[in-house]
């Protein structure tokens, strides 16, 4: 299992041909208290960089982008019911959705944990 990161402060956990996607702890610290999350529908085909989900704090709404191209195969209903999970467990329980990876070569441009730590330092 590999975890990769994007410039937009999202993480991808790769298991076989499925990627689980969430936002990083750094992102949640910048967003502040999350009060609403909107997720894509299961079965939706997403293109890389397309707005896929929305995360809203008291102050503002932010898009979560599809970090890669693929189909949404599962979404985290528990996160919709309890948006504050983003603040308490961004890297774990607050996963957003899972995608079937269409093109594994798109993973090559993403950062590993050490590179992402430098990116946010």
């Amino acid at each position, binding site marked *: 299992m590999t975890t990769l990161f994007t410039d937009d402060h999202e993480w991808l956990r790769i298991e076989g041909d499925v990627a689980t996607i969430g936002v990083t702890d750094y*992102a949640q610290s910048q967003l*502040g208290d999350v009060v609403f999350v909107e997720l894509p529908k299961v079965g939706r085909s997403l293109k890389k960089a397309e707005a896929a989900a929305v995360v809203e704090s*008291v*102050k503002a709404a932010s898009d979560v982008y599809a970090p890669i191209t693929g189909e949404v195969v599962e979404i985290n209903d528990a996160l919709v019911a309890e948006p504050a999970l983003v603040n308490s467990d961004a890297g774990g329980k607050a996963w957003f959705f899972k995608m079937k990876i269409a093109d594994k070569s798109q993973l090559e441009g993403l950062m590993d944990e050490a590179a992402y730590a430098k990116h946010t330092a």
Partner: protein
Amino acid sequence: MLARDDQPSLQRTPLHALHLALGGKMVPFAGYDMPVQYAAGVLREHLHTRASAGLFDVSHMGQIALRPKSGKAEDAALALERLVPQDIVAIAPGRQRYAQFTNEAGGILDDLMVANFGSHLFVVVNAACKAEDEAHLRANLSDACVIESLPDRALIALQGPKAESALAKLCADAPAMRFMDSAPRKVSGIDCFVSRSGYTGEDGFEISVPAEHAAALTNALLTDPDVLPIGLGARDSLRLEAGLCLYGHDIDTTTTPVEGALEWSIQKSRRAGGARAGGFAGADSILSQFEQGAARRRVGLTPQGRAPVREGAALFADATSSDPIGRVTSGGFGPTLNAPVAMGYLPTSHARAGSSVFAEVRGQRLAVQVAAMPFVPNNYKR
């Protein structure tokens, strides 16, 4: 997803160093580098203010003294009545009143507080408008008043149910004040102007203090365990739940006080048939709207789902119509209500509380109900 522009030309309030020391997250606001939140975060800061007491730096706002050249405060009041539709003459010494500067079309140039300090008037205006407001006053009132801008004063708001007990420790006179009382008072031995008012819907005080004493006074208030520093983020969510207008968003030069649902702030003496009816900028259109009603009105909006409906969202009469009938002017999440809240403009035909409309958010039509404001009951000490 996240960006911050550094703007080196931003101004600083006398409490800037204290904000940094308290861990404030600084953002540009109305030309100032201001704390949008502290470590507690917007949600907790909001809830703390409603439950206990919050301290806000609002020193970016403009403070101006209007001193009558005749020596009679009533002459300054009569002069100011040329620019606002409120009865200023009737403000008793030691009291203040909410007002709006209007333009010739009846639009709102800014909203403000006006206090009668006995010998002169003291006004507080919005940060983003203060240069224009001062020029407006100089251009129109210089025959009757000396307009003295007071940039060397900070302004601190202390808001919430424990504001009274917190301020009482430093100002024994504070508990006896009523909502909208405003007068010079000693706080910790410092010569301040204290008013019992604010922008949260809660009981509380606004304290104008000489800049050189601002940090000491703020630190003294913050030693009270009931008092937490609160940023602009919670200030906005608190005022939205209280149904209070944010100038430049909910009211501006394109909205009149009648459209803005601010009729309550215009006394009978300035309306048709009153002792000093009219005589202010835009009186023709504003007084005719009093008679005939306005075509649109500012209303409270409660989205029926969980999704916040934010400023700029178009409002529709139904789920499918293509032409918007109105627009959201402020919207977000109300932490006290634990639900989204908004305000905006709708045609009078749709402005009644309980009416159903739709807001467009990310291409979807969301059901929204017109609601009475305030969303959270006021807690003023009258």
